[in-house]
């Protein structure tokens, strides 16, 4: 791979890592606000933590947040006091993350990296649907 191609993929890894860590912090904030959702949100946190871990391992020089959520970010993004609304918001955010990761997968110069990014996009899409379906189930 050419050096500038590698550089662009490193930049992509950095952006993707930021997106995954932001999603993780949002889910953590929701779990903190709504304790009853913690059993459901735990597996989702695991998904995004796994994504962040792989991105850090693949590109250790990529600047990233610490593994703990940025306390200012957690307190800045307001979580709805209504748990259903909070879950719907997470669903929407997962949808956006999936779209972003799809675009990144399309753009990636490395085929192997594109494959991983597409997997991350698919995972976020699953989370979006799962959150939405669970919200509909509890609303009945």
């Amino acid at each position, binding site marked *: 791979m050419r050096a500038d191609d590698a550089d662009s993929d490193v930049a992509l890894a950095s952006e993707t890592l930021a997106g995954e860590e932001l999603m993780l912090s949002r889910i953590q904030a929701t779990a903190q606000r709504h304790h009853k959702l913690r059993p459901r949100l735990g597996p989702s946190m695991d*998904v995004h933590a*796994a*994504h962040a871990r792989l991105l850090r391992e693949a590109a250790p020089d990529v600047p990233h947040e610490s593994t703990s959520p940025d306390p200012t970010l957690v307190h800045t993004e307001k979580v709805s006091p209504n748990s259903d609304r909070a879950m719907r918001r997470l669903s929407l955010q997962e949808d956006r993350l999936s779209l972003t990761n*799809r675009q990144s997968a399309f753009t990636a110069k490395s085929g192997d990296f594109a*494959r*991983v990014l*597409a*997997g991350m996009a698919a995972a976020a899409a*699953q989370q979006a649907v799962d959150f939405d379906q669970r919200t509909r189930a509890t609303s009945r």
Partner: protein
Amino acid sequence: MTPLQALQNALAGEHAAVYVYGVIGGRVPRSAAPALAAQVSTAYTTHRARRDQLTTMVRAAGGEPVAAEVSYQLPNDARSLRELRVAALGTEQRCAAVYADTVGSTARANRQFAIDALVDSAVRQLGLGSRAVAYPGIPEL
């Protein structure tokens, strides 16, 4: 894997998916399991459309589209509702893996097609009873 090989693999996967969903669709009792019947019907239509699209894509890439097998082995007897759902889920999981590989071996429009197919397959798996995972279609992660 060359882009053409990747597209041929995806086409082969779709031939199998169309066959399996065709069998499943004929066995799901619509009155007793309307939700599963609808899912299978939608999946069959989707996979058939992808098969046709991939046939075009392979030709555009300069290849002769791989033909469907005469028949395919189902993962189980596919008689009970549970077996039918498991057979459908297995089909989507295989498709997801093939499309993940296709993403890695293609570019531009072909890659976009594979990305969209992977995401669709991953979401479809949820409806068939799978839980959400960190890397749909990438079993080694």
